Structure formats: structure tokens, C-alpha cells
């Protein structure tokens, strides 16, 4: 089983992309379009095949992982990079849920996108996204990771702007791409920074790890630290862009303009977690620069807390989920900052299940309400769509960390590690716990406003509310099951440590390197579990107290109807900070265009006019009338005569 080549994993989605893209282009001329069943089957088949090969490979994987070099990519004197793949514990975990959830969501999309004009195009993009994501996760060098990194950004752009006849969607897509680009440039410069340290060969992960080991063994860490710290910071900028952390978080709420399966797949489960993946992948490098880790920790904490607060104020069901995603990503970054990479990847894993389930549930709700996304117009849906409601409620329990559900185990682990590993651990633990309370509040608000109480939407729509078709429900149910049970892979309190074991070869060294230096405080794990449970229960209670009893909030007349365009209801001032930069750039462009360019043109035309006058001589002054000219010559004659007479000759 293990002799399956690694490149077969990305090959399937790539084939799917090419095939579906061809079908999309060829069929674009015809009115009817290709058969949806055929296209849907193709688009689920390829990710599923990929998933199967990942599973096959995963079971036969040796401890140290599989490394395969496919071919030479760039061969320039300063830059020699191969296309190579690395399949180890980390990529195994990531690939399993990327391809698995990818297949499920592709299945879901067949129902969701039914009847859309761009049906084929959508699945081509989804396959392209899966290809990029697989390359991102599977590559063995930073440069190839970067290919996937920009590739997923591109697919995210394409899918956010999928309904491109509405310019608001396009704007959201542009915003996502450009903000991501800022992060990507950080990634790129980080690679350059590393390359100056050890040449382009160091871009390979194994070589990088060896290089760090060599530094530590030779005692040269202090010498290299400044450059590595800069590189680490730049990589972290890349991660903040892709994972929507402060200060580059504004694009993710806007990205909800895309179709809901896209939000579930890209903006919740897979792409946004690639920042966490990168941190874990580079854990060895980050282990020698604790200052940068501290920054990661602080940024993660701020993001988690603030996004949770912002989630409280949203009325768009998808925006709530978007902010909750940002908040959960903040948790993951906190864990990574505390050198608990395995915990953060574990949270990525569990989060993928319950957040995908939540998004798919939200999608089913939106589908049922024919496009309505405003929670103020929902309510009481548990009677109409019981399956969706159950899925959502399970996922809700998972995300708030209700004991026994997936989120409980991973979040609990992160909080515990924060307390034990991080400097000022008590503080971070406290903030994390507070965030958990807020999480429970806004998620509770979402569930209550959507599923309980009475239906608040227009009456004529009520009759049309219906449960989603089976092909949408099936993935949701599977994900809900995952949301319940995924946590048992590493139920620390129960002593199950399967997950830790699979990640240990990748991140273990780095963690031990950092944690080994700390005096680990020993606290009973049950205490953390109790506190976590208490936070979840407290949050649920607050949510019930505020939103459950008083049937709040009522739909204010002045609030208008749906959330307008791509703007979130209440965002942080980051949008304003970004707009300051944008305005500065626009002002500079304005000055360049209107002032500098005009001045340059004026100079150019002045010189041109002078040249023309010099070139054409007096004919530039020619008058149109013959008589005037003759008279001028007469006057010239007079002047000449006068000169001759008065001076007695010119010479």
C-alpha cells in the first residue's frame, strides 16, 4: 500500500480541475449547460479518490514519514528548487481532513448549487482549491508551499467573487485577495530572508530543520537569531494574512459573500488554518526565537478575544460564524505561540469538523429560507428543519466546549497548555477562558435566534421552508458525528493520546526544546476541564437569559432589511486602519497622476514646442494672409533701409 506515489494525491483534483474547466468552457456557449449529475459525479469523484489514496497512504506510513522528489522545478544559479512531497504526521492529519471534508462539501455543493448557471465552473474552482491546498500541505519545501499558499488565495478570490455579476461580491473578493497578498509578500520576503542565511537549499523543510539543529549544536544561535527572527516575523505576517489574524483579519467576514459551501470549506475548515499549519511546520525554526512566539501568542489572544466580541453584534448568520472562525483561529495561534503545536493542530482538526458542520447547517438554513441570511428574520426553524437543527446544535455544543464534544477536548488542551507553557500563563489562560464564555454567548444567540422562538420572517415565505435534500444532509450528519467524536482522538483527561503520538515526530523536538526550559507547573487536568465546562455553561446561560427569554432583538425598522452588501454589521477599527492606508495610497496615486504626471507632460510639451519653433523657423509665426506677410516684409525693408541709412552701411 505504501508504494503509492505521493503525487497521485494532488493529481486527482488537478485532473478534475482540467476536466471540469474544459467542460465549463466548452459548454459555456450552450444555453442548457452540461448535465448536473455528470458534472457533480465527476467533481465528487476526484476529491474522493484523493481522499482514498490519502487514507491508503496514511495507514502504511512509517514513523518518520515519506519523502519523494518528483522533479526539478526552478534551476537558476541562485535558486535551485525541486518539486518534492513530504508525507508525515502533520501532513497526514491535514490531508485527511482536507480531502475528507473537501469531498463531503463537494457532495453538499451538488445540492446547494443546483440550478446555478456556473455549476461546472464552481466545481472546477473547488477542485483547483483542493489541489492547491494539497500542494500547500504536502510539499516539502517552502517555495512549493508558497505555490499552494497563493493558489488557495487565488481560489478563495475566485470563489468569493463567484457570483460576479454583483460588484459587491467582486469587491469582497478583491479585498480578500489583496489582504492575502500583503500576507503573501511577508511569506515571500521571509523565504528570501532565510535564503540569505543558508542559500536556496534551506527552503526545504528538512534542510531547514537540520540547519537549525546545526546552529544549536554549534552554539551559533545568537549569531543567526536576528535574521531568523526577522524571517519568523515575516512568515508570521504571512500567517496572519491567510489565517485572518490581527491586523489582516478584515477580509474574512467579507469573504462570506461567496457561496456557503465555499465559506465552509475554505473560510472555515481548510485554507484559513494553513497559517497554523505553517507555524507547526516551521516549529523548529520558531523554537529558537521565543520573542516571535510571544508576539504570536499576544496576537492570537487579541484576535480570539476581539473577534468573539465582534461576533456578539452580527445579525448575518454567516458573519457570526466568520467571526467565530477568526476567534477559534486566535485560539490556535495562542497555542502555537505557547509552543503547543500539537494542541493547535488538534484544534484545527476538531474545528474543521464542527465549523464545517455549522457552516453547512447555516447553508441549509439559507437554502431553506431561499437566500435569507439575516438572523432577525429567522426563528423557530427547529420544527421545520429538525435535522439541520440537530446538526447545528451538536456543532454548537462542540464549539463552546461542552464536555464530551470535540471542541471540549481541543480547547481544554489549549487552555491547559497556555497555563503551563506560556510565560504569564495565568493571564493568557484567563483571557482564553473569558473568550470561551463569550463564544458560548454568541453561539447561543445564533442558535436561539435561528431555531427557537417564533418565525419572524415574511409570512408568505413560511410555507416554502423545507428540509434540505439528502445529498446536503448526508455530509452534514457525517460532520456532526465528527463534531461529536473527533475529540476522542486525544482525550487527555481520559488518557487517550493518539493524536499527540502522530504529531510527535514533527513538532515534538521543537516543543521539547521550548518546554524543556520551563518549569512546568503541575495542575490537575480535571481542574481545567471543570473550568472549561463552567465557562461553556455560563455562556449558555447568559445567552438564554438575554436572547431566549425576551425574544430579542426585534427587527428595527430603521435597520433596513438584510445586511447591506459585503459590509459586516459591526467590525473593529481595522477596516478603518486599512482604509487609512488605502486612502494614503490613493492620495499618492492622485498626486502622481494629476500633479507629477501633468508637470512632466507640461515640461515635455514645452520642450516639444520649443523644438518645433526652432525646427520650423519663422514659419511658426506665419500669418494666413498674403498681404499681411508682404506688409511685414515691407516693414522689414523699411527697418533695413533705416539701419543702412542711419549707420552709413552695416559694415
Amino acid at each position, binding site marked *: 500500500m505504501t508504494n503509492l506515489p505521493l503525487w497521485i494525491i494532488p493529481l486527482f483534483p488537478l485532473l478534475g480541475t482540467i476536466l471540469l474547466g474544459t467542460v*465549463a*468552457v466548452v459548454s*459555456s*456557449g450552450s444555453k442548457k449547460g452540461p448535465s448536473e449529475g455528470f458534472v457533480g459525479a465527476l467533481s465528487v469523484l476526484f476529491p474522493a479518490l484523493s481522499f482514498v489514496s490519502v487514507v491508503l497512504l496514511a495507514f502504511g506510513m512509517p514513523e518518520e514519514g515519506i519523502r519523494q522528489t518528483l522533479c*526539478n*522545478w*526552478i*534551476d*537558476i*544559479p*541562485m*535558486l535551485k528548487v525541486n518539486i518534492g512531497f513530504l508525507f508525515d504526521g502533520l501532513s497526514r492529519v491535514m490531508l485527511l481532513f482536507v480531502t475528507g471534508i473537501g469531498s463531503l462539501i463537494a457532495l453538499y455543493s451538488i445540492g446547494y448549487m443546483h440550478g446555478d448557471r456556473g455549476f461546472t465552473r464552481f466545481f472546477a474552482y473547488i477542485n483547483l482549491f483542493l489541489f492547491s491546498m494539497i500542494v500547500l500541505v504536502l510539499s516539502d519545501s517552502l*517555495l512549493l508551499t*508558497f*505555490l499552494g*499558499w*497563493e*493558489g488557495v488565495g*487565488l481560489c478563495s*478570490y475566485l470563489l468569493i*467573487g463567484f457570483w*460576479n*455579476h*454583483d*460588484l459587491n461580491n*467582486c*469587491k469582497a*473578493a*478583491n479585498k480578500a*485577495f*489583496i489582504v492575502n*497578498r*500583503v500576507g503573501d*509578500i511577508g511569506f*515571500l*520576503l521571509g523565504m*528570501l*530572508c532565510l*535564503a*540569505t542565511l543558508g542559500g536556496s537549499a534551506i527552503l526545504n523543510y528538512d534542510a531547514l530543520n537540520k540547519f537549525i539543529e546545526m546552529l544549536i549544536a554549534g552554539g551559533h544561535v545568537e549569531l543567526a537569531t536576528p535574521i531568523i527572527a*526577522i524571517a519568523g516575523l515575516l512568515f508570521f505576517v504571512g500567517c496572519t494574512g491567510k489565517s485572518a489574524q490581527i491586523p489582516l483579519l478584515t477580509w474574512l467576514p467579507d469573504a462570506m459573500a461567496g457561496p456557503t459551501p465555499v465559506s465552509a470549506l475554505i473560510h472555515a475548515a481548510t485554507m484559513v488554518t494553513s497559517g497554523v499549519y505553517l507555524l507547526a511546520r516551521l516549529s523548529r525554526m520558531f523554537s529558537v526565537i521565543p520573542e516571535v512566539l510571544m508576539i504570536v501568542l499576544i496576537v492570537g489572544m487579541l484576535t480570539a478575544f476581539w473577534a468573539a466580541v465582534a461576533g456578539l453584534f452580527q445579525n448575518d448568520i454567516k458573519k457570526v460564524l466568520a467571526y467565530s472562525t477568526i476567534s477559534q483561529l486566535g485560539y490556535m495561534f495562542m497555542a502555537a505561540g505557547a509552543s503547543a503545536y500539537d494542541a493547535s493542530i488538534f484544534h484545527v482538526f476538531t474545528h474543521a469538523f464542527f465549523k464545517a458542520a455549522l457552516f453547512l447547517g447555516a447553508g441549509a438554513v439559507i437554502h431553506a429560507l431561499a437566500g435569507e441570511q439575516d438572523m432577525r428574520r429567522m426563528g423557530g426553524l427547529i420544527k421545520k428543519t429538525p435535522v439541520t437543527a440537530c446538526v447545528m446544535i451538536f456543532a454548537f455544543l462542540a464549539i463552546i466546549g461542552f464536555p464530551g464534544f470535540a471542541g471540549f477536548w481541543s480547547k481544554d488542551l489549549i487552555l491547559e497548555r497556555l497555563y503551563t507553557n506560556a510565560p504569564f500563563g495565568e493571564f493568557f489562560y484567563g483571557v482564553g477562558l473569558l473568550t470561551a464564555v463569550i463564544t458560548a454567548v454568541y453561539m447561543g444567540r445564533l442558535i436561539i435566534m435561528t431555531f427557537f422562538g417564533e418565525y419572524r420572517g415574511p409570512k408568505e415565505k413560511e410555507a416554502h421552508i423545507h428540509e434540505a435534500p439528502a445529498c446536503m444532509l448526508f455530509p452534514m450528519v457525517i460532520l456532526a458525528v465528527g463534531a461529536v467524536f473527533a475529540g476522542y482522538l486525544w482525550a487527555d483527561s481520559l488518557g487517550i493520546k493518539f493524536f499527540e503520538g502522530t504529531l510527535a515526530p514533527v513538532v515534538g523536538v521543537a516543543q521539547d526544546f521550548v518546554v524543556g526550559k520551563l518549569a512546568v507547573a503541575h495542575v490537575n487536568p480535571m481542574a481545567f476541564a471543570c473550568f472549561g465546562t463552567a465557562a461553556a455553561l455560563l455562556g449558555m446561560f447568559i445567552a438564554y437569559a438575554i436572547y431566549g427569554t425576551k425574544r430579542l432583538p426585534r427587527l428595527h425598522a430603521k435597520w433596513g432589511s438584510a445586511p447591506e452588501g459585503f459590509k459586516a454589521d459591526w467590525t473593529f477599527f481595522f477596516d478603518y486602519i486599512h482604509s487609512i492606508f488605502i486612502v494614503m*495610497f*490613493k492620495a*499618492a*496615486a*492622485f498626486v*502622481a*497622476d494629476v500633479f*507629477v*504626471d501633468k508637470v*512632466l*507632460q507640461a515640461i*515635455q510639451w514645452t520642450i*516639444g514646442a520649443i*523644438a518645433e519653433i526652432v525646427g520650423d523657423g519663422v514659419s511658426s509665426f506665419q500669418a494666413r494672409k498674403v498681404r499681411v506677410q508682404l506688409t511685414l516684409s515691407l516693414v522689414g525693408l523699411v527697418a533695413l533701409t533705416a539701419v543702412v541709412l542711419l549707420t552709413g552701411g552695416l559694415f
Partner: protein
Amino acid sequence: MLLHLLVLAPFVAAVLMAATSKEDPKSSSRLAFLFGYAFVALSIALIASGNQATEAIEWFHIPGAKGSVYYYLYSHGLGAWMVLLSTSLSLVALMTARNTLDTNYRNFAIGIFALMGAMNGTFLAADAVLFFFFFEAMVIPAAILIAAYGGKERTKAAMTFAIYTLVGSAPMMVALWYLVTVADNSLVLSLAVALQNLDPAMQSTLLACFLLAFMVKTPIFPFHGWQAITYAEAPAPLSAILTGAMSKAGVFGFIAWILPIFPLSMEWVDAMMWLGLLTAVYGAMLAFRAMDGKKLLAYSSMGHLGLAVAGVFSLSESMLPAVLVLLVAHGLSAGAQFYLMGIAERFAGTRDIEQLGGLAKRNPVFGSLFGFVAVLSLAVPGTAGFVGEFTVLMSLWDMGPLPALVAGLCLILSAAYMLRFVQKVIFGTPARQYEDGKRMTALEGSSIGVMGVLLLVFGMHPAFITNALQLFDENAVQEMNKVSHPETAPVESSTVEAPADVVDDATADENVAAVAQPMTEEDLRQLDSNLKANGFSDEERASLIAQLKAMSESEVAEAPEQNEATANEEASENE
């Protein structure tokens, strides 16, 4: 032979095109396509066959110059790829023009072939005067084509273009004339040697004159005034050639003529690099505000070329392959974008991007092609643009983090304006009533698609491009010299490692053979160190010097009796 064909045959083709029918574009386009395919095939053969040179044919004497001007062509990786760009873009231009131009396709084809010949000459000339000749000759067919087939302000655009570029290179002509009068002949290395003996003030004056010409052609920041209006008013196929191939002549000049000839001080290098970066940022800003689609593309092309120039003047080890990949990638992607913009203009009858829009819905194939090419121009990894820009950034990082940071900023800005462009042109609801029946033909679509696929291929395997540069090895140089100078080839191979006493002899002989003894070992060594300082790799230096020696040897052979005797003596001594 290949070189002669590539430079002279386009002119012959232009003449032959004159024999076809003026009224019937079908028949004349068939012949034009045939020629176009032939030239593309020839240029691919040129790349595949590596470095080569023709016989140096004496052409004419410049009054006051010591040596004569040669008709002497040689190709190295850079020039060969530029030739491929010029031929392939011309071919696609001929294809797209058939539907875009309704009148007088024949004359358009004549102009395109003349332009192609001049461009090929520019990229292949080994003699500075020959280079200058073609460099100027490019302007004339381009200006005529603009004046004949352009938009509303075509006359103004053509005049601006012609005057700007001709005036820009006028100082270079004077400087070149001066250099030729002090040098032994007008080949690169003798010019370089001649320059070494001048005083520094004169050197920097000459350098400024040369730089000006290339800066105008590229164009670099304060000299970009001609570009926007020219690219906007020229017919779209011609704009594609102008930006894809002709503007490369400027960057090519920096690499192939400035760097080998002039000993650059750090101030010049720094200034040029920052000027390049400034151009990149400035171009991006103007592109962000541009309302005219073709002007936007013109500014975007200015931004990319600014980055390329900055890369050239980073003078790092990998500068040459990096810039080459960037140039090829930009040539293909910007060319394809201009073609597509021309097609959009044909659909809508306007270039104003506010009035376009909704083309993705209206014409899905065009929309996907447009988006695809736009993404390719964004330097997304996996495309040739990424390899080029990444390696250029890498070169810039050698000069310090700040230039690289600015270049990174340019990448962000390029994303900003390109996405805005894509959004305004193909997304949204159709802003105006498009005429039915004006569709993109399969020929146009497939040719642009091929360009896109090529970009992907080069992005996944850039060695296709960069391998052409690695033919600078010893064998190739030997081969080249054997081809060009069969009788002197063995001699010169021994003079490369000539002992010191021979050097003395050679310097002593210099008085006797003042006319025909252009290079001494001393000069060569000095030059070698100079080249090294300018960032040329060992192989390139070796090849250049061997070329030069071949040249001087041939002169010796052609010279009068006593010089020949001296040369033979020298040869026998060496043996």
C-alpha cells in the same frame, strides 16, 4: 545563416507581402501567417542551437573612426529569447489583426514584418553601430503603423512616440560616435577597453548619454511621457508588440551594452536601481487610477519593466536569468493582455473601463481567458511571472531588505490594480449594449490561450528559458569561434592562457600594428576584472573575451602584409 535569416528575411517578407492583394485580407493573411510561423520556427531553432555568430562583414567606415563598422550578428540566450518574443508576438498580432482591422491588412503586415526585422537586428547585433542602426530603425515602422491604424489621436501619438524615442537616443548617437573614434572598432569589448582610458568625467558623460536612450525606450520614470498615449492609441496588436518586445530593447540595452562597456560606480548602480523601483511604484499608482484600459496596461507594463531594471542593477549573480525570465513572462502576459483588450474594444467600441463590464456573462470564453491571463500577470506561483519576480526580488534582497520591500509593495499594488481592471472589464452587469456578431474567433482565442499555457509551462519549468543562458560554456564558445573564424580558432585558444612574455611582445607590437592590434592581454585582464565587478559570471566573461579575441585576430588576418607577419610570428611563438 539562422541569424541572417532572422534579421534580413523579415524585410524580404515585407517586400513580398507588397505583392499580395490589398483588398482581400484573406489571401494576404495566409501568406503573412506562413511567414509568421516560419519566423517563429526559426527563432525556436535559434534558441535550441545555442550561441552562434556570423562572419563579421565589413560594412562601412565612420569618418574619424579607427576601425570600420561590421555587419556582425551573434546570439546568446538573452537575445535569442527576445527574438522569440518578437517573432511570436508578431505572429499573434497578425492573427488578431485580421479581425480587428477592416482595411488594408496587407500594409499592416508589411509594417509588422519590417518592425520584426528591426527588432531582431537590435537583439542580435554584435556591433554597437549596427545595434544603434536597428535600435533607431525600430521606431519608424512602429510610428507609421500607429499613424496609419491608430485610434482617434493617432497622429499625435505617433509623433510623440517617434520624437521622444529618437530624441532620447540622439545623445547616445553622439556618445557612440565619440567612443568609436577612440576605440579600435565598434564591438563591445573594444569599446569597453577604449572607455577605460578616458577620464572619469568623460566616462560618466558617455554613460549618461547611453543610459538616457535606454531609459526612454524602457521607459523609466521621468521619461515615460510617450508611453501611455502611444500604447493607448496604437492598434492593440501593435501595442502588444511594442510592450512585449520593443520595450524590452531598453532592458536589453542595459544588460547587453551598458553593463559590459561601462565601469559602473556604486552611485550609478544605486541610482538606477532606485529609479527602476520608483518606476515600478509610479507605474502601479498610475495604473490604479487609469480609466483607459490600454493606458492601464501600459502603466502596468511600465511597473513590471521598472522592476526588471531594478533587478538588472542589483547586479547579483543570478540577475541575468532572473531578469530574462521576468522579461519573457512579462512579454507574453502583457502581450496577451493587450490582445484581449483589443478584442474587448472591438466588442464594446470603447476602451473606457467604466463603460465595459459584464463581459464574463456576455462572452464566457473571453471572460475566462481574460481572467486567466490577468492571473498569469499577477505573478501567482506556478506561472513564469512568479519565477521571474521571485528571483528578481532575490537579487534585490542582495542590495538590502529595503529594495526588496519596495518591490514587494509593487507586487501588492499590481494585485490591486489588476483586480480592479478585471472587475471593471469582465465582472458586474453589462454596462452597455454590446453589438451581437462580434465574437472572438477561434484563431485568436487559441493563440492567446497558447501564450497562457506557455506561461504556465515556463512557470513550472523555467529551465526552458534559463538553460539558454548556460550555453556560455567553453565548448560552445570554441564552436562559435570555429564557425566564425575557422582559420584562427586554434590560435586564440592558446592565447587565452598566454604567458607573460607574450604579453610584452604584444604590447610592443602594438605600435607596429596600431590599426589591427586592438586588444592586449593587459586590456583584457583589466576588462575582465571590470566585468567581474559588474556581475558577469565566469562563463559569460570567458565567452565575451573569446569573442573579442576572435574579432581582433580576424582583423589581424585581414590587415596588410606586415601585420599578418606579426600575427603569424605571435602565433608561432605561442605554439
